[in-house]
Structures are given as structure tokens and as C-alpha cells.
């Protein structure tokens, strides 16, 4: 029950280890997840601790990895697979959309596919092309998948354990740029149920809605705004699907203004959805339209230009300033 200071990478590793220890049907596989422990070391030590059958490297083929995972899940296992980077999950797209997401429904629940697809995702790490995509919209739009994106070690642990325990396929998005920053967390008491957002900071003037890598930026923006006398509430969505309308809408109704923040390109995205549903559901509580601070509708930029693409404190504050304040 002790609080300790640890990184998201450690929390995730701990979640995998604890899940594997608790349930021997949990198996971990993918590219370089064995002896190497994954390029981000999230699976570090698992193959040594649980043996080659429980944590292993596969041939280099993502459709193969996910397709095999689906079969194993149909036959009593709980596979947790790693896609090495966001853009390298695309070869598995057909398996994900046409099978993982649909198998339960196809068979009226007779064939379950309890599996987790871990995707180190998003940017802010100076990575080159294909290593920084924010791909959540593709998954969130696909019925049959749960889509989670933690923003801190405690949630990373709690959500991953629940994802592994879930009878449904879960796309688990791990913000790469948060892997190695340390925070206080009490993993034992981490309860982040799938489907529940969290209020990260109270506030009365406007609500910032974010998830994954955008949450720390939103918190920073709220802190900066506080200095200027504006009180910003921060909601961490955490669970993109299922979405917690209740918490998010209640938050927005309490302030009457909102900005959605996400790294992904904005067009037809998760932030479009959040903006649309908040406006649909809170219309008469709003003093201004819900605004979005998102990535531009461009391929993820090269390292030297990525700072233009990432939601920044300044851009968030500029947008908040734009929310039609009576006194301005």
C-alpha cells in the first residue's frame, strides 16, 4: 500500500508481471519483447521470469502477431501483444478491425477474444517518421474495441491490469514521451476502472479535456493560467472507449467553457468526437463553442519541427483566451 516514485515504464512492467503471475493464461509476445525486454524495456525480465512459453519473440510481422493472438484468445489464452511503434501497428489493421473487434459479435459471444494490443504511441520524443503517430482515432472509431490511454504511472498500472483481465479486446495506448518521467504512485491501490474519466485538477472558469500525453500539458497550462488568475479544471479522459460522458459533461456544465486537447491530427478524430458530444449534451450550459487544440492535419513532422505540432501551454492558453469571456 506504499506510495513510491516510479516511471510509467516501471508501472507497465509491473502490471504485466503481476498479471502473468496471477493468471497463467496471460502470455506476452511481439517483436523484441523476449530477451531484449522490448525497445522501451516494458517487457523487461518477463521471459526470464516466466519462461519462453509465456513471453516470446515472434517473426517480424504485425498481422501475424495479432492474428495469432486472436487464435490464442479463441482458445483460452489472454495474449498481450506489443506493436513496436504506433505506425507499425498498421499492418495488423485488417486483423484488428475485421476480426479482433468483431469476433465476439460475430459469434453471439461464443468466441471471446480477450487480448490486449499495447501500442507505444504519439510524439514528443524527437523520433523520426513512423515513430510518433497518434493513431487513436482509427481504433476509437472501430466498434468492438476498448481504447485506453493512461497519463500517469498509477493509471498505467491499473488500466493495464484491467485491460488484461477484460473479456474484450483492448487497444492500450502508451504515451512514449511519458514512459520515463517519474511520479508518486501507489500501485496496489490503483483503481482506474475502464470507462471512467478523472478530474485531475479542480477549476471553475473553463474545462480542459485531455488524455494520454496531452494531460501533463493541460495541467501545466492550468497551472500557468492560475498564475494569471484564471481557474482551469482538467479532465483526464483515460478511457476513450467506452467514453465517460457523465464525468466529462458534468465537468463542462460546471464551468460553461471547454477546450479539448490532443496530439493527433484534428480532423475526424477523437477530439472531434469529444467536442461534438460535449456540445450536443451541454449546449445550453456553454458560453462559447468547445474549442480544440490538436495536431494539425499533416503527417507527423520531423524532429526539428515537431514542437509546432504538439499542443503547447501557450496554444492552450491562447485558445482559452478565445472562449468569449464577458469581460474581454
Amino acid at each position, binding site marked *: 500500500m506504499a506510495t513510491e516514485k516510479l516511471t510509467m515504464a516501471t508501472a507497465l512492467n509491473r502490471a504485466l508481471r503481476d498479471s502473468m503471475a496471477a493468471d497463467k493464461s496471460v*502470455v506476452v509476445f511481439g517483436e523484441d519483447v523476449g530477451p531484449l525486454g522490448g525497445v522501451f524495456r516494458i517487457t523487461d525480465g518477463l521471459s526470464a521470469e516466466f519462461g519462453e*512459453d509465456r513471453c516470446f519473440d*515472434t*517473426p517480424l*510481422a504485425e*498481422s*501475424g502477431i*495479432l*492474428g*495469432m*493472438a*486472436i*487464435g*490464442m*484468445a*479463441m*482458445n*483460452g*489464452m489472454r*495474449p498481450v501483444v506489443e506493436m513496436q511503434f504506433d505506425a507499425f501497428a498498421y*499492418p495488423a489493421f*485488417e*486483423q484488428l478491425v*475485421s*476480426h479482433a473487434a*468483431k*469476433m*465476439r*459479435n*460475430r*459469434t*453471439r*459471444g*461464443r*468466441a*471471446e477474444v480477450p487480448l490486449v494490443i499495447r501500442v507505444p504511441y504519439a510524439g514528443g520524443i524527437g523520433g523520426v517518421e513512423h515513430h510518433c503517430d497518434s493513431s487513436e482515432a482509427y481504433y476509437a472509431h472501430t*466498434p*468492438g474495441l*476498448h481504447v485506453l490511454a493512461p497519463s500517469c504511472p498509477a493509471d498505467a498500472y491499473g488500466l493495464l491490469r484491467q485491460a488484461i483481465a*477484460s*473479456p*474484450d479486446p483492448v487497444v492500450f495506448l502508451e504515451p512514449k514521451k511519458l514512459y520515463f518521467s517519474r511520479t508518486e504512485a501507489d500501485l496496489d491501490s490503483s483503481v482506474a476502472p475502464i*470507462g471512467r474519466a478523472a478530474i485531475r485538477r479542480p477549476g471553475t472558469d473553463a474545462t480542459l479535456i485531455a488524455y494520454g500525453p496531452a494531460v501533463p500539458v493541460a495541467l501545466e497550462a492550468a497551472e500557468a493560467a492560475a498564475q494569471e488568475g484564471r481557474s482551469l479544471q482538467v479532465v483526464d479522459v483515460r478511457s476513450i*472507449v*467506452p*467514453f465517460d*460522458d*457523465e464525468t466529462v459533461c458534468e465537468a463542462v456544465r460546471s464551468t460553461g467553457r471547454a477546450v479539448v486537447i490532443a496530439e493527433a491530427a484534428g480532423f475526424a478524430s477523437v477530439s472531434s468526437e469529444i467536442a461534438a458530444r460535449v456540445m450536443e449534451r451541454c449546449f445550453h450550459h456553454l458560453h462559447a463553442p468547445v474549442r480544440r487544440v490538436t495536431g494539425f492535419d499533416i503527417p507527423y513532422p520531423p524532429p526539428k519541427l515537431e514542437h509546432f505540432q504538439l499542443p503547447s501551454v501557450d496554444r492552450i492558453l491562447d485558445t482559452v483566451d478565445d472562449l468569449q469571456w464577458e469581460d474581454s
Partner: protein
Amino acid sequence: MLLDPDGNPVGVDLPTDDALIRAYAALVAARRLNDQAYALVRQGRLAVYPSSHGQEACQVAAAHVLSPGDWLFPTYRDTAAIAARGVDPVQALTLLKGDWHSGYDPVATRVAPQATPLATHLLHAVGVAHAGRLRGEDAVVMAICGDGATSEGDFHEALNFAAVFRTPVVFFVQNNEYAISVPLSRQTAAPSLAHKGIGYGIPGERVDGNDIAALLTVLGAAVEKARSGEGPQLVEAHTYRVQAHTNADDASRYRDADEVAPWIARDPITRVETYLRGRGLLDDQKAAGYAASAAEMAEHMRAGLNTDVVADYRDLFAYVYAEPTPQLREQQALVADELTREEVR
């Protein structure tokens, strides 16, 4: 080849008489199933039907070589194989009737849902086999695909994963020379599809796909090799799609009737029938008995598929997740409300 096209035995290791008689009965049933399903399309009871007419020997053999604990991974064209494995054809045809996507319990029957996205299910077959092996079971998985499907990336990945993990899967390619309108020559420049095993370190066999005796022997051997730990096996059966791709297809746009005729002469049922009659294992009376069983099955199909199921909208929301999300609950309520108001009107 163990039986030549005229039904004369040419091999030595023929399957047992019992196995051949059982296969004959299943072949008659399979043909009847194909004919009945076609008729049901004409009557508007099925949306479409991709028939295995002429490929029934492959269908029956794929099912008959399996033990009870084994799995079958069929395609849309393999309804007859599914039936031969013991699944109720009415349930198997649920997909094409349009009541639901898959009508049977894949876990209880150990028959996967019929796969439409080509070659994708081959990977699931590898996963099912690998999971069984990790648990120390000795189940083998029979995974069927067509000649066209061998061109998909998933075919490659499935064979490679199976080979690297020495997973007990028999990859059974029904080469019927066409992928809809596209002939085999546009699918590969290899000497045969069985050659594809070499690049994975998988033994590949070719077999006459209209010779039930040869199929039982070759597929049977492959299953036992896989079971005994020799890793995955690849079997290519050379057969022919006698009818159009489905009833909706017009084969005259891409092939001549001349091409089809010799294949009709090579019918897999007559071939084994000639042999069995020659051996005195089959006579008119017995044949009539099998035909009658097949007719009974057809009657069961008509009865089961000529019903109008009242579609329940709640099913749309019930199986998307183990628990419907709040969003799905709202959406279901919307339909419920529409229906209530409709009733009121």
C-alpha cells in the same frame, strides 16, 4: 492419385473400405447440400452461395481426417466441410441467410466461423494450435484456403509463424484454378502451390483434389505428422470450381464452357462410386440409402431456412462487448423508443 479418373485403383495404400464408404455417404450429402443451397438462393432464402460443387472430395476429406479434439478453419466456400464435421447445415448457413454473422458455436464445435477476409483465418488457426500446444494438448488444426488466398500477406505470415513455432497446423489449399475470374496463372508463377512450403521449411504435398482416396491418405498423413510434433504441413489439392464463383457471378465472361467439361467428367463422386461398386462395397440399394439420408438433410435445410426469423434489434447491441457501453445502451434505447412509437401509431 490413388483412384484414376475412371475409378480404377492406381495406388497401394488405399484408405480402409469403411473410411471410403463413410466418405462416399458424406460426398453424396455434400453434393446435396450444395444443390439445396443453390436452390435456396434461387428461392430468395439465401443471399448468395459460393458452392463447392465438384470440390466435395476436398470438403469431405478435410473433415474426415480430423479427430474429435481437432479444429477446422473453413472459408466461405467450405459449408460442406463444416457439415461433414457435424455442424448443422442450417446453422452453418445462418451467415448467408442473413440472420446473423455466424450461426454455430465455434468453441463447442471446434469449427471456426467461416472466414471471408481471405487468408486472415490462417493466422487464427496458428494461434489456436499454438495455444493448444502450450497447454500440452495434441489437437491439430486443419486450415483451408483457396488458390487466390495464397497471394495474401497473411498466408505468408501464417505459414511462417507456424513453421517457426512448429505449430500443428495443416494448411490445406483447395486450388480450384480460379479466384472469382482470375486464373491461377495470374496468382503465381511457381511450379505449384505446394512449392510454397519450401520457403518456410514446411513439407508440401500435391494431391488430386477429386480423388477422395488420395485426399484421405495425404491429408490424414499430414494431420498425423502435425500431431506427432513434425510441425505444420502444406497440402495443395488440385481441383476445379465447376460452377461460377457464386450464383451472382457470370463465369462466361472469363472462361469457356470447354474448359469446364473435362472437369465434370472427373467428378469426385462418380469416381469413388465406380470403385466402390467395382469392389462390391456399394450397390443400388445402399446408394439409395445414402441418397435418402442426403435428401433428409436437404429437407431439414429447407425446413430450417424457409423460416422468417423475426430480427431482434437488441442482438445488435448485446454482443459488441461483454457488457454494453453506456453509449450502446443509449443507442439501443433510441431504437426501442422508435419501435414503441411505431407501435402506437
